[in-house]
């Protein structure tokens, strides 16, 4: 065996004695932690530049790679949204935006933002970076597969982006890709565009599966000593549950993509009934378009929680750290996350109330949909109850969290409108829906991402982002985004349907013209405001002040690595041993206002800890 493998057998068997309480007169027994079940992980260290930065097997580097790739797609999505808003607010101003182009923009914007931006960012980016650190593992359990996962994602993105340049352009079928129109003439990009989209999605699913297995097994099987599931930070819980959802929901996407590809290429009729186009009967027959919708939403609804749950988890941690208070009702939070995850498989057809499916399904799905509101509500209550009687640092990170709460509650409640089947009838397929999901998915998780960037930047880069710029960034983004989407609900009430290239000739819109112009202007400003963040990052990297270790005085393990930023293997010689949950802030009797997860009971003998 060559020296490329670390041979750490010397400290493989950490016994409880070697780490237990240092004096303080209490029996070392209370610090007892069971011996290691997992042997020291065998890490493959990079030798060359390529192994270190390109085909890297270190989850942290992979996380950053995921993050950057996802942000790149996000910027593409943002630019597309600008173009859309340009057309909607000021039709005809940009002559090059034809109806075809508009629909291509909408489709790519939706798909990129949901799948390639948010899903990849939360699970691939934050998941890879934070999971091993937070559960106290040296790396993901299968670093090689993890590396493949990123590159598969990268190829998927490349294929997706390639579709902008093929004849006919990218698909313009709407991100829901409903057949039959997806693959028929009359829809932009019905040739190459849709094929590349389907291929890219399949690659994404395969790549994600490789990553997802890693996240799941790392969390289930590779935690450090003392780290029980109920001592994991909620971030990990959120990412974990989202991963489980993804593992079970993406298969439906994969299957529907495969079937649609066959319909397109081989002329099968899974989703295609008899169709008459331009007076000619096509060679399809007998298929069912609604079947696709079921498959799609069986994936699609869990998917929206896949982007929501990590946000829920992360925001809980951020709030707790910066309110200097334990998260309120941790157990309830965990059960809520798991419950929301489980329930999300039983609500899919609330997207199909007016799709012409069996009408009796309405009763079932309306009930299950509204039941989901209960665990979600508990989470909201617990966030604000965490603030209550806390000692809240009103810094940039906290501002993003507060912004999240406002936008999420707003969007969640509009979700209740839509979930209630007969209320959905008039609102479905109008801008009310667009407003709902941007509030709850476009803005709320984005707030969390931003908060997380400000929170963990010191860990990743070792420098503190500028607070002043951060606050400017927050207020422009929050106020701007709120003024985009709050008024948009009212367009829906007027009856403006979504996916309309323009409708100024319609009597409904005469009153909505000014509103649309306002929304578009706000969208331009908000998008441009993201440059503040870019500027902040560049400036900080150049001149920013160096971060001390654990600058926020947080408890969870990622701040207790041997170096900042953490190196390969995360924790130096010895893995940390965990004695408590990560939320021991302001514990009565403790000297500091925080007790790290690694603090042994005997070290802090005089505290009155309620839960460990």
């Amino acid at each position, binding site marked *: 065996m060559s020296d490329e*493998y670390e041979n750490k057998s010397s400290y493989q068997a950490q016994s409880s004695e070697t780490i237990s309480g240092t004096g303080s007169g209490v029996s070392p027994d209370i610090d*007892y*932690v*069971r*011996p*290691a*079940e*997992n042997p020291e992980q*065998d890490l*493959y260290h990079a030798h060359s530049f390529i192994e270190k930065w390109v085909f890297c097997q270190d989850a942290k580097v992979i996380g950053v790679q995921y993050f950057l790739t996802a942000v790149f797609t996000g910027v593409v999505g943002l630019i597309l949204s600008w173009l859309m808003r340009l057309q909607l607010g000021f039709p005809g101003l940009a002559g090059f935006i034809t109806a075809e182009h508009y629909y291509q923009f909408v489709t790519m914007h939706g798909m990129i933002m949901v799948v390639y931006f948010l899903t990849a960012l939360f699970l691939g980016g934050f998941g890879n970076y934070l999971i091993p650190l937070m559960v106290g593992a040296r790396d993901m*359990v*299968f670093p*090689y*597969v993890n590396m493949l996962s990123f590159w598969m994602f990268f190829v998927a993105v490349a294929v997706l982006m390639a579709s902008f340049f093929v004849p006919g352009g990218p698909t313009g079928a709407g991100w829901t890709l409903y057949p039959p129109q997806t693959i028929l003439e009359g829809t932009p990009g019905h040739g190459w565009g849709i094929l590349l989209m389907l291929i890219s999605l399949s690659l994404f699913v395969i790549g994600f*599966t490789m990553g*997802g*297995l*890693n996240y*799941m*097994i790392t969390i*289930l*099987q*590779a*935690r*450090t*000593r*003392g*780290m*029980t*599931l*109920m*001592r994991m930070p909620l971030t990990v819980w959120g990412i974990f549950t989202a991963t489980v959802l993804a*593992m*079970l*929901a*993406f*298969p*439906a996407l*994969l*299957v*529907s993509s*495969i*079937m649609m590809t*066959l319909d397109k290429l*081989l*002329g*099968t*009729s*899974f989703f295609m009934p008899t169709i008459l186009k331009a007076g000619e009967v096509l*060679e399809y*027959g*007998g*298929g*069912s378009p609604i*079947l696709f919708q*079921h*498959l799609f939403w*069986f994936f699609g609804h869990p998917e929206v929680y896949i982007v929501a749950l990590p946000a829920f988890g992360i925001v809980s941690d951020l709030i707790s750290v910066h309110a200097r208070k334990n998260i309120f009702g941790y157990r309830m939070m965990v059960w809520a996350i798991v419950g929301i995850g489980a329930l999300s498989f039983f609500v899919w057809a609330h997207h199909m109330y007016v799709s012409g499916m069996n009408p009796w399904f309405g009763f079932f799905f309306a009930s299950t949909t509204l039941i989901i509101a209960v665990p979600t509500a508990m989470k909201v209550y617990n966030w604000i109850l965490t603030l209550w009687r806390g000692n809240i640092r009103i810094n940039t990170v906290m501002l993003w969290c507060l912004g999240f709460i406002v936008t999420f509650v707003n969007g969640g409640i509009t979700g209740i409108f839509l979930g209630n089947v007969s209320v959905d009838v008039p609102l479905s397929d109008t801008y009310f829906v667009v407003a709902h999901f941007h509030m709850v998915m476009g803005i709320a998780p984005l707030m969390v991402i931003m908060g997380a960037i400000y929170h963990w930047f010191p860990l990743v880069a070792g420098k503190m982002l500028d607070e002043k710029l951060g606050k400017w960034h927050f207020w422009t983004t929050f106020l701007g985004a709120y003024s985009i989407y709050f008024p948009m609900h009212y367009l829906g009430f007027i009856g403006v349907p979504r996916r309309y290239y323009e409708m100024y000739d319609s009597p409904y819109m005469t009153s909505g013209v000014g509103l649309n112009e306002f929304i578009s202007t706000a969208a331009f400003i908000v998008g441009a405001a993201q440059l503040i963040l870019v500027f902040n990052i560049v400036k900080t990297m150049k001149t920013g002040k160096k971060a001390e270790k654990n600058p926020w005085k947080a408890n969870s393990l990622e701040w207790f690595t041997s170096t900042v930023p953490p190196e390969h293997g995360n924790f130096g010689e010895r893995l940390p041993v*965990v004695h408590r949950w990560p939320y021991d802030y302001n514990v009565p009797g403790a000297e500091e206002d925080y007790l790290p997860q690694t603090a042994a009971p005997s070290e802090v003998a005089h505290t009155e800890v309620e839960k460990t």
Partner: protein
Amino acid sequence: MSDPKIEGFELEKGFRGMAKDTGSDQTMFKGVHWGKAMMWIFLLSDTFVFSCFLIAYMKGRASTPAEWPNPSEVFALEAFGVPVPLLLIALMTFVLITSSGTMALAVKYGYERNRKMCGYLILATALGGLTFVGMQAYEWSKLIHEGVRPWENPFGAAQFGSFFFMITGFHGTHVSIGVIFLFIYCYKVFAGHYDEGKRGWFTKMKGDYVEVEILGLYWHFVDLVWVFIFAFFYLW
């Protein structure tokens, strides 16, 4: 597999044991190898893939007004001059179950570190798998000969051909991948990689007989899926 001993932790059986395992630190599946846990979760995900295929098939079949071909006639084979319904399918089932059995034994001998037996049994499994793929190829070509295409067929509803080729094709792909891996593992067993803990070619992980069990799980899963396809596609 069965209960390991974890120091300082009393393993209990049943639901109480489950609650205790779940609430414990470090691992939830006590004594389960990372790779094995990973394979199980992958199979769970794959189950959803096949379920979606079969559900689509069920919905498609239930809603075509056109007549669905009778599989028992379509898949009949002439034997001694009489058409025997589903003969080939029955043989395929037989072959796959046989290979599943040899695989189960291979895993057993792997754990007993019986290199020879383990290797031969894996080889037998691989050959079984190969036979299955061959028979499937024969079945496909026979149907194609009779005019069945993914987009049409002479017997009735066009979806029959579509679902047939798609589902058996997807299953066949799984079998083929399995066969490739079986041959690779067969080589590795005979070469003694698992006895010496030689590192993998790509992953650089130390070899271990547990990998045979992991492959075994996959192989049994392929068999399991066939049970469902047999019931829903051929017997319905």
